[in-house]
């Protein structure tokens, strides 16, 4: 009897340590480059943001919680905001983590540039999953943001393959942020009201995000200190928050005003949400504000099903520019992603796209 008990304990311990070992194995990068993991361990001890998110999402032990549906948005097609639940499946994050999106890396806290091939592990992307899910819920509580988690999965896969340490002249961190993007969020006639709404939010879903928002309202962060947008504990989290606030800013100021009559005309069309988020996400890319808005001007003569298809095709100008450069790049990257997947997620992804990467359907 006693022997059986000891045996059971030994099996459980072995299973747990195997899980821990798997969580710490490199999905990309080399075992010797542990900077990122050390970053996260330090953040777990010292950062109020990391402790809050880790506790909330039970990162060591997953918890199930009942849905508290107190969402104020009336968009039935957007996901319900369930506490403690993350959006992305591990298999998809693992595949996205194998994408090499840039050659230059920044190591924090030193801010040194180079090619370190940092070890990127499952425990790290589980934390990123929690950060994105938490901040997404906060943004949806405080803003009218017609974007689904699947679109975010596509966006971060393209921008950085979820690597927080990628940085080059084109952008920094997970969302590949640029100086003009950050500056735009701090302009009082553009994004500042969004930062203020998060800083002043009393909703539980904004508990972690508001720490960053409050801090940044008193002092605007700058990309001259890249670690403030990279390092786990505050920087990587700021990067995610800014990329989401940037989307909300574009929606409020640039995209929704142009789609007003289209939204009214097709308000009953189930494809309308997809038109909205495709039009919105196109503004995130390198094409710039005018190109994203011009794409809407051009395509709003099409009905939603045709509009969505047209967003995946180039819309070339006389000067050789492409008004749909970002949505075209997103579609290409999603095709590349399949090669890093295994069945059954691979076949699901080939059938449903990034929607197959969502932890739960809605």
């Amino acid at each position, binding site marked *: 009897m006693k022997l059986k008990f000891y045996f059971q304990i030994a099996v459980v311990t072995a299973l747990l340590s195997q899980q821990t070992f798997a969580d710490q194995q490199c999905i990309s990068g080399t075992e010797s480059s542990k900077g990122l993991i050390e970053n996260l361990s330090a953040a777990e001890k010292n950062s109020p943001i990391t402790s809050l998110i880790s506790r909330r999402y039970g990162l060591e032990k997953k918890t199930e919680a009942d849905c508290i549906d107190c969402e104020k948005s009336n968009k039935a097609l957007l996901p319900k905001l369930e506490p403690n639940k993350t959006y992305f499946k591990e298999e998809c994050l693992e595949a996205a983590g194998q994408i090499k999106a840039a050659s230059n890396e920044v190591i924090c806290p030193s801010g040194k540039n180079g090619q370190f091939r940092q070890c990127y592990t499952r425990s790290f992307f589980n934390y990123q999953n929690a950060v994105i899910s938490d901040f997404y819920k906060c943004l949806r509580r405080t803003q009218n943001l017609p974007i689904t988690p699947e679109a975010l999965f596509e966006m971060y896969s393209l921008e950085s393959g979820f690597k927080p340490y990628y940085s080059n002249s084109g952008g920094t961190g997970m969302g590949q942020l640029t100086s*003009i993007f950050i*500056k*735009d969020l701090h*302009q009082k*006639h*553009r994004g500042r009201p969004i930062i203020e709404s998060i800083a002043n939010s009393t909703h539980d879903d904004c508990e972690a995000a508001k720490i960053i928002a409050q801090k940044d309202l008193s002092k605007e962060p700058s990309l001259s200190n890249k670690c403030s947008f990279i390092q786990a504990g505050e920087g990587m989290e700021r990067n995610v928050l800014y990329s989401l606030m940037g989307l909300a800013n574009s929606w409020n100021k640039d995209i929704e005003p142009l789609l007003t009559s289209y939204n009214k005309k097709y308000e009953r069309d189930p494809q309308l949400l997809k038109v909205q988020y495709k039009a919105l996400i196109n503004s995130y890319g*390198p*094409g*710039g*504000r*005018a*190109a994203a*808005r*011009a*794409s809407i*001007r*051009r*395509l709003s*003569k*099409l009905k939603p099903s045709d509009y969505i298809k*047209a967003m995946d095709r180039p*819309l*070339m*100008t*006389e*000067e050789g*520019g492409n*008004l749909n450069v970002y949505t075209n790049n997103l579609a290409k990257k999603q095709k590349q992603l399949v090669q890093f997947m295994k069945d059954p997620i691979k076949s699901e992804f080939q059938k449903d796209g990034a929607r197959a990467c969502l932890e739960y359907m809605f």
Partner: protein
Amino acid sequence: MLRIYVLILLLISPLLTSAQNLKSHYDDYQTAFSRIILISSKKESFIKDYSALRLQIEKKYQNFAELEKDQLTTMGNQMAVQLEMLAPLDYLISQKITPENCKAAAHLNELSINSSKKTYSLINQALINLCQ
């Protein structure tokens, strides 16, 4: 044989005429666009003429889009992006030309730097002239 040629010509001539028609509308739009940039180089002409010319150019694009029907031509795409690049000047005409508003207009232009580098430079120069 001659009949076949005539038939082909009859079939494609409306298409050629339509393409030529679109091109002439496009050229007309480009002339109007150059004019709007020109009047935006001086404060007096900008304040006096911008709003009327802006309406005209918008109308020219709408006419073009109607002629295009379901096509999405590169000319139409070019016109649409140029129209959108006028946002900083639209902003400035709706406000007073003050240093603060000039800064906000320049910021709007920066957001579209990659949409059309050529138009970005033209607007940038216009803003420098208007705000000096």
